[in-house]
């Protein structure tokens, strides 16, 4: 080093150099936090899939569980989860979307909207087991007896409605309501205000504007949110534990009975419930069956979520405003 460079008035002083070194160190520390998050996750998932590899096959998905799940496949719980998701969507999708439409398009920015906003956040924070208790209290112990008083024949047990797909779907629907509302609100909020104003200026009413301009322009965003709700509904255990899910139900191996295995008002099997029971409540369960079930459930959920992410990326690339 010669005197000329030392005299450079813009050279970093020792104090500044120390600060910059610290900034670089902190950057790597923060990157380390991300790595702590990502690396174990990838390792764990790989571990599960490797241990599940011996059972994973098409037959494993297609066959019904045999001998308390020690042999056979996962068809019956897969179907139960499928119908549970469909059932809960039937309830939550219209109500959630309309609720978001109300908050975003109708309600003024006053205290009613604020109260609704607060109830949405608190509903989102209610623990899943409390939703389960609610399902027991409201649907199994209150709604079903009321229905049975009308439809059930006291001499014929088979006409009685039991806790099943209907009650579990309703419970899951209440639980997912705030998720649908939040994602739909975001999608509606992304539609530029100018679109609405243009529509109003043409003489359209509020409902016409929503139907012809706002909803079509936010449809893909709403769909993305609903797909995420599907994955949440498929994985939940605590809310369906006492509202209709059961560990074992006989499901036919062929014919229509295989595709429509459960009636709405009788207990059903579900993936999450199946994993819950076989992983710690049945002795001498082969290790590979536990990991197989976990791998299928994880695979299912990651598949649904990747679909939603791809939809969102595609949507962002297509956006014209």
């Amino acid at each position: 080093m010669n005197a000329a460079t030392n005299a450079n008035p813009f050279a970093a002083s020792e104090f500044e150099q120390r600060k910059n070194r610290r900034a670089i160190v902190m950057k790597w520390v923060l990157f380390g936090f991300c790595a702590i998050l990502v690396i174990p996750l990838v390792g764990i998932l790989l571990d599960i899939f490797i241990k599940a590899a011996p059972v994973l096959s098409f037959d494993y998905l297609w066959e019904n569980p045999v001998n308390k799940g020690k042999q056979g496949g996962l068809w019956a719980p897969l179907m139960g989860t499928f119908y549970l998701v469909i059932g809960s969507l039937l309830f939550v999708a219209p109500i959630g979307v309309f609720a978001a439409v109300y908050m975003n398009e109708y309600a003024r920015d006053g205290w009613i909207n604020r109260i609704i906003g607060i109830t949405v956040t608190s509903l989102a924070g209610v623990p899943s087991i409390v939703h389960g208790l609610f399902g027991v209290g409201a649907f199994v112990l209150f709604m079903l007896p009321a229905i049975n008083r009308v439809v059930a024949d006291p001499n014929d047990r088979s006409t009685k409605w039991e806790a099943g797909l209907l009650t579990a779907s309703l419970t899951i629907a209440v639980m997912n309501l705030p998720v649908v509302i939040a994602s739909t609100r975001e999608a509606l909020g992304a539609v530029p205000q100018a679109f609405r104003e243009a529509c109003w200026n043409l003489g359209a009413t509020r409902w016409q504007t929503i139907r012809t301009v706002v909803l079509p322009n936010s449809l893909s965003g709403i769909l993305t949110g609903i797909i995420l709700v599907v994955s949440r509904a498929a994985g939940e255990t605590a809310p369906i534990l006492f509202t209709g899910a059961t560990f074992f139900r006989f499901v036919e191996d062929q014919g229509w009975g295989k595709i429509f295995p459960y009636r709405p008002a009788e207990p059903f099997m579900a993936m999450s419930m199946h994993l819950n029971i076989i992983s710690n409540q049945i002795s001498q369960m082969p290790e590979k069956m536990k990991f197989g079930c976990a791998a299928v459930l994880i695979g299912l959920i990651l598949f649904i979520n990747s679909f939603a992410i791809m939809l969102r990326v595609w949507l962002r690339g297509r956006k014209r405003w």
Partner: protein
Amino acid sequence: MSEKANARRRKFQFLDALELPTEWIIRLCGWSSIIGIAAIFLFIFREAAPMVPKLDWIHFFTSPRWIPNPGTGNDASFGALALLVGTFTTTFIALIISVPIGLGAAVYVSEFAKGKTKETLKIIIELLAAIPSIVWGFIGLMILGPIVKWIFTAQPDTWWSHTMLTLHLASADTGAAQGTNLLTGGIILALMSVPLVVSLSEDALRAVPDSYREAALALGANPWETVRRVLFPAARNGLLAACMLGMGRAIGETMAVLMATGHNNRIPAALTDPVRTMTATIAAEMGEAVVDSDHYRMLFVLGIVLFVMTCGINVAADIIVKGVKGKTK
């Protein structure tokens, strides 16, 4: 307008006549979340109500003796202290791990990472959030539990196990060596709540206007100084709310802690003692409790305690971010 478009328009014109009914349907749906919250409280309270005046509330909060089904001749004891301690210790451990990692990862994703790295990290964190709690419980039981057990209690009568015992890191309980315990449950809860903390903190950091960053840059601050001296103070409320919501999630988690904490009703004396949380108690005992028995109603009382706690945390977090009137900055 072409003929075809006109025909299509006429086909859907009947929908316009539904303006008024639709508006009322939409309004009703808009209130659905209020109805939902009220219904949850009402129906849980309806099941718990006969127990509320009967219950010795001081006993409930101070006694660790939770004996819902005593043998004949003994009285049932509903002391939830050990359950409360179990819930709060697992949550505390989860927060110790998830808050620094969550905030750090959020800062990295929002301020340092660029382009592909940023997108990849965000997607991975989102997928992490999607993994269901039963799978986390499975991971705790089958993968993390054995690791924790191997570290803390695997080698009896070595200097390592003695050190662990004196430091209250290993459980003194010989029967408790299954690897499902306070620490395992805490780590699993941390992994579950981190994605939430990350995404909410990232939102909070992104809400800080870019002019703040530019001003810091103009004053000669480097990236880390910008984060520490400018972004953290500016996003303080949002970051606090993110941590609180992470805590709410950890308190309310059920299936994962049921499988990963060992489910033992006592006050933990060491880091790897098995514990039992309120949520896990409800999940485990609801199936056996006879409908309308005291035990059954007590589980609903626990549900109310949980409901009030998590609602309080969520509402507080919401008010911290948005203020009482909901004005966004």
